[in-house]
C-alpha cells in the first residue's frame, strides 16, 4: 500500500485507495497544470477488458468538471463507473480545481417511495467510503441499507464519502431495500444533506440528537432542498438518541416533525455518556430503551434498537433481538449481512402467535359483518385492544410473508 492510501496523509489532488487488498476502488492523483491538456496514466487490474472504457470515462468526467490541463494518475482495482466518477470528482475538488460542478453517473431507476410504517426490522450499515460492500448489499435482503457518513468515516475522508454516497444512491440498485443515509452530527450533517438529498434517499438518520430543534433544523434543510430539486416523494427522518439528554427528550424528538418515522437508540455512545460498560444483557440501558419505546409509541412512530456488535456470536444476536422485540422494538441495525436472517427471525411473530391473531381477526370480521358489537371467540369475549393488537400482528406477519 502506498503512503497516500492513509487518509490522514492524503495529499491535495488525491482520492481513493489502491493496493493488493483493495477491491472495487481506485486511487486518483491529479496534478493541475497551466497548459498542455490532459495526460492520463492508467494502471488497472481490469485493463484488458475495461481499460479503454476507463480512459474514456476519465476524460469525460474531467470535461464535465471543467478540468482542461492536468496530469492524472489512476490505479484502478476494478472499480465500477460510479465509483470512478466519485473518486475523480473528489480528487479534482481536493486539488482546488472545481467546486461547483458534479460528475453524476448514470441513474438507476428509483424504487417505489417508502411507506411511513413499512417494515424496518433490519438496517444494514455500509461504510460510506468503502464501495465494495454497497454493490451487492441489496441482494442480502435487509429491510434497509444505511450509507454511513458518520462513525465509519474518518474525518479526513468526509468529503470523499459524501460524493461516493451521493453516486451510490444514484447508481446502485438496492432492490426492495429502503435507502437510508446516516449524516454527521450537525452542523457538518447539513453539508451532507446538500450533497445527498438531491439523489432522494428514502430516510435520513440523524445521529446524537438531544433535542427536537436539531430535527427541525434537518427538516428545514430538506424542505429547502426539496423545493430546489423538485423532489415529490417522502424523505423520512430517524433520529438516533445516544445520550442521557436525548433519552429524556425522546417524546419531544419523536414528535418534532411529521416526517419522523422512528426513534433509534445508539448504545455505544449512550453507555459512554453514562460512563458504564455496555454488556451483552443490556441491563444498564434498560431504562433508556423502555423509555424510548414508550416515547415512540406515544408519537405513533417505530422504536428501533441499536446494533449487536459481535458478528461471530449468532446465539447472542438471537437473544438480544428476541429481547428487543419483547421490549417493543420493531427492528435493529446490522453490521454484517449474516445477521439479517437471524434478526428477521427474531422479530417475526411465532406461528402460534400468528395463528391466534388470525383467529381473533376472523372473529372480529365475522362480528363486523353480522353487525355484532362484541367480538367473541368460543365462549370468550375479546377486548377491543386485543383485537387491535391482533390486527397489527397479522398485518406485520403478512408484510413479512408469514401469513
Amino acid at each position: 500500500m502506498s503512503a497516500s492510501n492513509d487518509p490522514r496523509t492524503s495529499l491535495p489532488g488525491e482520492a481513493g485507495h489502491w493496493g493488493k487488498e483493495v477491491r472495487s476502488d481506485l486511487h486518483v492523483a491529479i496534478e493541475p497544470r497551466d497548459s498542455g491538456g490532459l495526460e492520463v496514466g492508467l494502471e488497472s487490474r481490469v485493463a484488458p477488458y475495461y481499460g479503454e472504457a476507463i480512459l474514456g470515462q476519465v476524460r469525460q468526467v474531467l470535461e464535465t468538471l471543467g478540468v482542461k490541463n492536468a496530469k492524472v494518475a489512476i490505479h484502478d482495482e476494478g472499480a465500477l463507473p460510479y465509483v470512478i466518477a466519485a473518486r475523480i470528482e473528489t480528487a479534482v475538488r481536493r486539488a482546488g480545481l472545481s467546486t461547483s460542478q458534479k460528475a453524476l453517473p448514470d441513474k438507476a431507476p428509483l424504487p417505489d417511495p417508502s411507506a411511513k410504517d413499512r417494515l424496518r426490522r433490519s438496517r444494514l450499515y455500509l461504510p460510506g467510503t468503502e464501495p465494495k460492500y454497497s454493490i451487492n448489499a441489496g441482494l442480502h435482503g435487509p429491510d434497509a441499507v444505511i450509507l454511513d457518513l458518520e462513525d465509519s468515516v474518518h474525518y479526513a475522508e468526509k468529503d470523499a464519502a459524501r460524493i461516493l454516497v451521493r453516486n451510490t444512491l444514484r447508481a446502485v440498485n438496492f432492490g426492495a431495500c429502503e435507502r437510508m443515509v446516516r449524516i454527521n452530527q450537525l452542523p457538518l450533517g447539513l453539508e451532507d444533506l446538500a450533497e445527498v438529498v438531491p439523489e432522494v434517499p428514502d430516510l435520513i438518520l440523524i445521529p446524537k440528537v438531544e433535542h427536537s430543534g436539531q430535527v427541525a433544523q434537518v427538516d428545514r434543510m430538506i424542505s429547502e432542498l426539496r423545493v430546489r430539486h423538485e423532489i415529490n416523494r417522502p424523505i423520512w427522518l430517524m433520529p438516533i438518541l445516544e445520550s442521557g439528554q436525548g433519552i429524556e427528550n425522546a417524546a419531544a424528538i419523536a414528535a418534532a416533525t411529521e416526517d419522523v418515522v422512528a426513534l433509534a437508540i445508539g448504545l455505544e455512545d449512550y453507555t459512554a455518556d453514562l460512563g458504564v460498560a455496555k454488556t451483552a444483557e443490556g441491563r444498564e440501558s434498560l431504562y433508556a430503551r423502555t423509555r424510548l419505546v414508550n416515547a415512540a409509541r406515544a408519537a405513533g412512530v417505530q422504536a428501533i434498537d441499536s446494533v449487536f456488535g459481535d458478528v461471530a456470536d449468532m446465539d447472542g444476536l438471537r437473544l438480544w433481538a428476541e429481547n428487543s422485540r419483547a421490549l417493543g422494538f420493531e427492528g435493529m441495525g446490522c453490521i454484517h449481512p449474516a445477521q439479517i436472517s437471524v434478526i428477521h427471525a427474531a422479530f417475526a411473530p411465532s406461528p402460534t402467535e400468528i395463528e391466534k391473531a388470525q383467529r381473533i381477526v376472523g372473529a372480529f370480521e365475522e362480528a363486523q359483518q353480522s353487525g355484532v358489537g362484541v367480538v367473541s371467540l368460543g365462549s370468550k369475549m375479546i377486548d377491543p385492544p386485543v383485537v387491535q393488537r391482533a390486527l397489527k400482528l397479522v398485518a406485520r406477519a403478512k408484510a413479512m410473508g408469514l401469513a
Partner: protein
Amino acid sequence: MTERVELAHNAAGRSVPSMVNGKPQMPYLGIGKYQPRVRKQAPPVRSSKDYPENGDKRLPDLETALRKCGLRDGMVVSNHHHLRDGDRVALRMLEAAAKIGVKDLLWFPSASFPSQKSAIDLMEKSVIHHIEGSMNGPLGDYCTQGKMRGMGVLRSHGGRWQAIQDGEVHIDIAVIAAPTADAFGNADGSHGKSACGSLGFALADSMYADQVIVVTDNLVPFPCVPWQIQGNHVDYVVEVESIGDPAKIVSGTTQITRSPDRLRIAEFVARFLREAGIMKNGFSFQAGAGGIALAFVDYLRRLMKEDGVKARFVRGGSTKYLVELLQEGLTDYILDGQAFDLDGVNSISSDARHIATSPFTSYNYHGKGNFASMVDAVVLGATEVDVHFNANVVTHSDGRLLHGIGGWQNCLFSGCSILAVPSFRDRIPVIVDEVTTLTGPGEMIDVVVTERGIAINPLRKDLLDAVKSSKLPIRPIQDIKSEVEQICGGKPARPKLGDRPVAVVKWVDGTVLDTVWQVG
C-alpha cells in the same frame, strides 16, 4: 517452435491444431463420439528373477536410481501432485536429470505448482523440452508467452489416465513421492510426517511406466500397509530426509468463505439440491475445497439434518466439512480422490468408511464405467461461462493459463453439474458471450448459480420443472448477464489473443477441445 501449425475446426467450432508435439491429433467430435480402436498399452514384461529375493530395492539416491533406469535424452518422466505446493521430489528429480546431463525431457506431472517455477530454468537450459500437465502461476505465464519449446497439453485427471492407457503418452520413468513406503516399494499416502491422504494420481504411473522409482521419507519395515501403490510395480526405492513441506502439503484448517456474496451462492446451491429433489435418502454429491464449495457442504449439512436425509456416499477432495458429515452419520462413505486438509488426512488413515480412490475408479474414459457419472450432483467453479453454458476453467478471461482442469471435466458427467460462481469478479463479468477457452461443453453443464440468481440449462427441462414452484431466484442466463453488464458499465472488451497455439485442452476422450493461444 517455428514449425507451421495446421488448424482444424472441431465439433465445438473451435480452431485446434491437428498436430501437437509431433503427434497427429483427433479434433473433438462431440460427447461420446470418439472410440479409439487400439489395445491398452502395457509396460515391458519383467521377471521377478531380476529383482532381489529379499525384496530390498533400495538405492542410495535419486540420481543413482535415474541412472539405473537408463534415463536419456527425450524421455518422458512423471510425478504426481499429491504433495501440492509442498512437493520436494519432482524438482529434485528434474535437477538430478540436469546433473546427469540429459536434454529434452517431457515432464508429465499430474499437475504443477508455483513452487516448481525453477522448472523454467530447466526449460531454458533444454533439460526439459516441454510440460504436459496443468500449469499455472509462473509456469503458466511462461507457456502462454510462447516461451516453451513444445506445446502444453492440458488433460483432466481422467484424461491423463486415458492418455496413458491408450498410448497417447508413454511414461519412461515414474518417480513417486511416498509419505510411507517399505523397501519393496509398497507405498501409502495416508501415514507419515508428509502424509497427504491418497496416492491415486500416481497409480497409472506405477502400472504403466517402464520404470518406477518410489521416493520416501518414512521407510517402514515390510509390509507397508495399506499399499496404495503396489511394490510389485516398483523398480527402485530411495530414502530421503524429506519429500515435502507438510505445511504446504495440506492446509491445517480449510476456511469457509466469509464473503456474504459467496455464502449466498453456497446457500442457493444447497437449497437448489433440496428443492430439485436431488437431496434425498441415499443420494450422493461431490464438492471441492474452494470457499464456496466448503460453505455449500456446511449449508447442505443443515438441510440434511432438518429433513432427516442421509447420503450413501460423498466424493472429495476431502475436507473437515466432509469428514464431519461422515462422523455425524450423514453419509455412509467418503470416496476420496485427495485430502485437502489435516482432518481429511487423519480421517482417511483412521476411518474405514473413508476410502482412497483414483482417477481409474472415478474418471477414466477407458474404464468400464466410472464413479463420476454415478454421482447425483457436483458443485464446481469456473472462470467464465457463456450463454450456452459452455465454461472455461483453465484460463483467465485475458487468455493466460490459470488453473489445471483437474477432475473438473470428468465431474461434468454427474447427474447434475452445477457451476457456483460470482456473477462478476472485480469488474469482470463471469457470464460472457463466448468463453476464452472452452473447457466444458455447455450440454454437460446443467446449472449456473450466482449471487444474483440461478440459471438452469434449457436442455434440463426436468430440473426446470422440479423447481417451478420454488422461491429460489431462477432466471434465464441472459437476464443475469445483461444485469451484470449494466452494473459493470458495458460488455468487457475481448482479450487480444495471438494466433500461435501454445497449449491444447483435451476432452476426456483424448480429442482436442480447444487451443490456448499465445498472449503478450
